[in-house]
């Protein structure tokens, strides 16, 4: 991510309460992850100690401090999905992609993450690929779906 776009994001938010979180969210939205240099720049420009920037950046699961894969798989392990077999969904995806939650494969194809509740408990078990939600996920369908991603 280039310095100018980071500057633009910071200038837009400067002076607002809570601007640190908003700035990090926008950088992450644009860049998919938060490189160390970007955090240093945010610290310098918002005049927030780097330790506080790192604290916020590591406090939330949403913020990524390492590069992400091209496709993001989120598996809901919230309670409703848990009782409806989220573990089977997770096992299937782990088998098919060879990665565990929090990991990205070496080809940067998939990143896998468990999430707590996507708010569509009525469709559980739920998984989300690149923002698209799949309800009542069955292992065979998941395998078919994952084949579609490059």
């Amino acid at each position, binding site marked *: 991510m280039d310095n100018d776009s980071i500057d633009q994001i910071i200038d837009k938010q400067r002076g607002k*309460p809570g601007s640190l979180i908003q700035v990090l969210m926008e950088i992450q939205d644009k860049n998919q992850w938060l490189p160390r240099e970007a955090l240093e720049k945010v610290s310098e420009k918002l005049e927030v100690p780097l330790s506080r920037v790192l604290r916020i950046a590591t406090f939330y699961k949403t913020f990524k401090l390492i590069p992400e894969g091209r496709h993001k798989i989120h598996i809901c392990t919230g*309670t409703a999905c848990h009782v*409806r077999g989220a573990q089977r969904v997770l096992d299937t995806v782990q088998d098919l992609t060879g990665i565990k939650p929090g990991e990205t494969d070496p080809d940067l194809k998939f990143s896998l993450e468990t999430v707590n509740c996507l*708010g569509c408990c009525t*469709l559980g078990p739920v998984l989300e690929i690149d923002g698209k939600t799949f309800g009542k996920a069955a292992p065979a369908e998941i395998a078919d779906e994952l084949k579609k991603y490059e």
Partner: protein
Amino acid sequence: MARISSVAELEELRKDILSKREPGKPWIAFCGGIGCLCLGNDRVISAFAEEIRKQSLEAKVGLRMTGCHGFCEKGPSVVIYPEEVCYLEVTPEDVPEIIAQTVVGKKVIDRLVYTDPKTGEKAAHLFEIPFYRNQTRFLIGNNPRINPRSIDDYLAAGGYSALAKALFEMSPEQVLAEIKKANLRGRGGGGFPAGLKWETARNAPGEEKYVIVNAHEGEPGAFMDRALFTGNPHCVLEGLIIGAYAIGAHQGFIYTRHDNPQLRENIDIALAQAKEYGLLGENILGSGFNFNVEVHLDIGIFVSGESSALMRSIEGKAPEPRPKYIRTSVSGIWEKPSNLNNVETWANVPMIINKGSAWYAGIGTERSKGTKLISLSGKVCNTGVVEVPLGTPLKEIVYGIGGGIPNGKKLKAVHFGGPMGGSLPESLIDTPLDFDALAKLGAPMGAGAMLVIDEDTCMVDLARHFLEFLAGESCGKCVPCREGIRQMLKILTRITKGKGKEGDLELLEELAGVTREAALCALGRSAPNPFLSTLKYFRDEYEAHIKEKRCPALSCKELSASGGAKKNE
């Protein structure tokens, strides 16, 4: 849009909006709730638009994208007005037939209406379907009738009349007295009387005060606040403005998650429209009362919904709770009196002001008044957003509305309140939905996530699951919560793997006791609840795991394979 500067102008505008609506004109309401969209309602909507265009019916048929209708299990849901014919599990292929038969021909298509699986009885209209019929939908009932992005729809349904009444016919003290008399209790989890909270903030010293909508909804299994706020944002906003007037606040905050774009857009649009009409901003409706609202988005983890943590977050700090030895109603955001209520609590306010506290207090039980939104999920036939009067027996929710347990399985328990709540066994299914009755039994209602559990779920594993959730979603600041959860999780994990030992339960109980008594915030103090309630009602399952290395629900992988489990099969 012109700015409205008096009640007379508001009523004139309302009349004008209503006069432009032809009473007999058919219009089609699509559920835009998260469940229906996941099930492909977007394709259904496009098919309708396409078909209407093809048949040149644009002038004769209205289309309306609404918020969640409630019956998520059977989505995509489409309701055809004025008859309120409700079609479920609609596909794009059904669309031409629906237009020809129902919209134009006024005939009901049998195969698309709800059929009761037990009696085979058909229900063509929304109000006849048992899932809806057995509810009392004061708050969520307007969802199918309102486009959340149209303030005119809300005005047509009588919106902002409570605000006009409060501002011009009542003093702030009278509004406060009304809320106190109605005994409105906070819907976010604590059940604390909203009127008393408002009064504390009102009487707290200082000119600057804040009101906040907690729309964080971090409780797993809870989705009713999103359904209400996304589907009818003005009703929450109207309640907030009335509350601000009663408390003497001129600045409000809406705290919500940034991962729900639809909610975010609907809130932004609602605020902009209200501002344009002069229902928000300076000199509201010409009353001299000023009030502005700011939206604060967060990525939130579970602890961010705790009120003091939420306020730290609005200040731009790490969302760590602080001890409430001084209440946030006295010293909250930037140490100013800050009154926080959840989405559903605010949404109750316009109704109380319009219909009066006496009417409101007539609904519910002696100490729990009004209706309650419930997110019904888990092993139940009809999942979705449910609204019932407080005091409704749980049995009625599971069977009358929820349609019972699918696949011929037996009900084992209902769990309330997510990771801070508790489970009740099937034998207590006649318990009323009541703040105090549920708390007394160890299953506090929380925000209203109600999870139905059948015989296939292991209660030990459920308690473990909640602690695993909290291990990653607490802030980690105080020792009893962080270390207590860490050790309880370790022991429970061991038990579910068949490595439980004599004395484990006593150790867990001691840890639970200390965490409950000594943790810094409500999250930590409630963290042991799921364990304590499952131990109370399902001790035999714990003992089977520890003593016989057997999982009675055949759900713990390591145990199902063991000799003990096989004997049971």
